[in-house]
């Protein structure tokens, strides 16, 4: 099951060998530790380069995005949310 969210979130990320790797995020007043990045893609929104990440936290998968023009992260969608979203 997928749930659309599309909300701004705060993300902690590190650079690893020239790549940006999100490690955790805050959403709904909860801290979510990212255990795995299962997919990454690049796209553009206007003149800004954006990155879409699919990450695992707990049992759920989260689609988060980074707009490099605005330097803003968003939580777009949650998959397999048993956590009562």
């Amino acid at each position, binding site marked *: *099951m997928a749930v659309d969210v599309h909300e701004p979130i705060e993300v902690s990320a590190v650079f690893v060998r020239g790549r940006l790797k999100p490690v955790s995020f805050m959403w709904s007043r909860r801290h979510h530790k990212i255990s795995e990045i299962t997919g990454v*893609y690049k*796209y553009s*929104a*206007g003149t800004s380069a954006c990155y879409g990440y*699919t990450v695992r936290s707990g049992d759920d998968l989260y689609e988060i995005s980074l707009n490099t023009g605005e330097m803003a992260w968003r939580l777009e969608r949650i998959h397999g949310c048993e956590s009562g979203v």
Partner: protein
Amino acid sequence: MSPAFRGHLCAPPRPVSRTAVRTVIHVDMDAYFASVEQRDLPIYRKKPLLVCHTDDLSSYRGIVAAASYEAREFGVKSGTSVLEAKLKLPHAAYIAGNYEKYLHNTRLLMQICEKYTDCLEVYSIDEAFLDITATAHFFGSPRDTAVRLQAEVAKKLRLTCSVGVGPNKLVAKMASELKKPFGLTVIEPEDLPGIFAPLPVDSIPGVGRRMRRHLDAIGIRTIGQLAEAPSGLMREKFGVIGEILHKAAFGIDDSPVVPSYKGMEVKSFGQSLSLGKGSADVEYLCDVLLGLCDGATRRMRKAGYLGRTVAVYICLGRLFDLSRRTGLGCYTDLPGRVHDVAKDLLLRERASLDVYPATKVGVSVTNLAKREDGQQTTVFDVLDEKEAAVAAVVDRLKNRYGEKAVTRCSLIGIRNRYKGAPRAEIGIF
């Protein structure tokens, strides 16, 4: 040119005469959108997954854009309505398509394909033709080339594709359909009759339900029977399409692999859209053309080009290509004028559309001049001051907020007016 391809340049490419037997590869990703999602979202692996083209997943509106192989076992495939899919598979996973993600993967796929030839035609979001006539010997044989390409796609994208190899695009495409998923089929010209003869006529790309019924009525059910039919009868019954079909039964197809050259001088700006099973609705096709004219002229304005010839391309049933062009009378980069002319060209082909629906339409503007090369003020810039002003505002909005930020009222909901299975077609990366 890719590094891998460049690495082989110590051996000169074999000269290829115009009459030489061609070797064409057709690459077709397997259950593309669904496979990308199953790769990135492991919870959907080995389960029926339906990627839908809809504005509301909780509703019964929209169509299935891609079905995983697990879902196909239940008779749900791309083009099935969401309503029908939910009746057949109420417990499957339904997700909305993420086309940015698929386009990203398509770009990576084409980067891999470019290593094997410089003659690469991006045919759709998940299909490409490669003319490897001059380059296959770098990799061994045509089969070796295909094996290597397929393995590289699997390794780098973690996705499978099916590959067909043949003497032309038609045979290569039919070959890739023969074994799926992760199939590899090489058809030599001499093996053609044995392989094709027993296949049903609708194995020929573009032969749909309607044409199958027409052929059935005159006792033609297999490609072998089609090949045996007198060519005069085919011409008499179905006109030009009949001739093309008859040739197709023998595996004859002269259409070239049209490469999308990069880094070369810009010759045209175009955009096209595949329409899945096709549409004969002229009003709808005119609106599709308007969207394509918007897209093509937007890129012209971005790159600073004006053009004065418009060409319309219509693919009838994927077998019969029509291309019509005419002059604009002066240079322009505005969609209104280009659309007026393109619409006229399309309407002239109404009779052909009645016989066979359009499965792909495209528009391109050629005869280009750089705006800075003395074409600052054109007749239409003067005549269409309002349109030029609107276009400038639209460009500014799109530059800032993205290509989807603003659209014409007449194009809102255009996707929902199409009853078949739309597939985004990529013109330029």
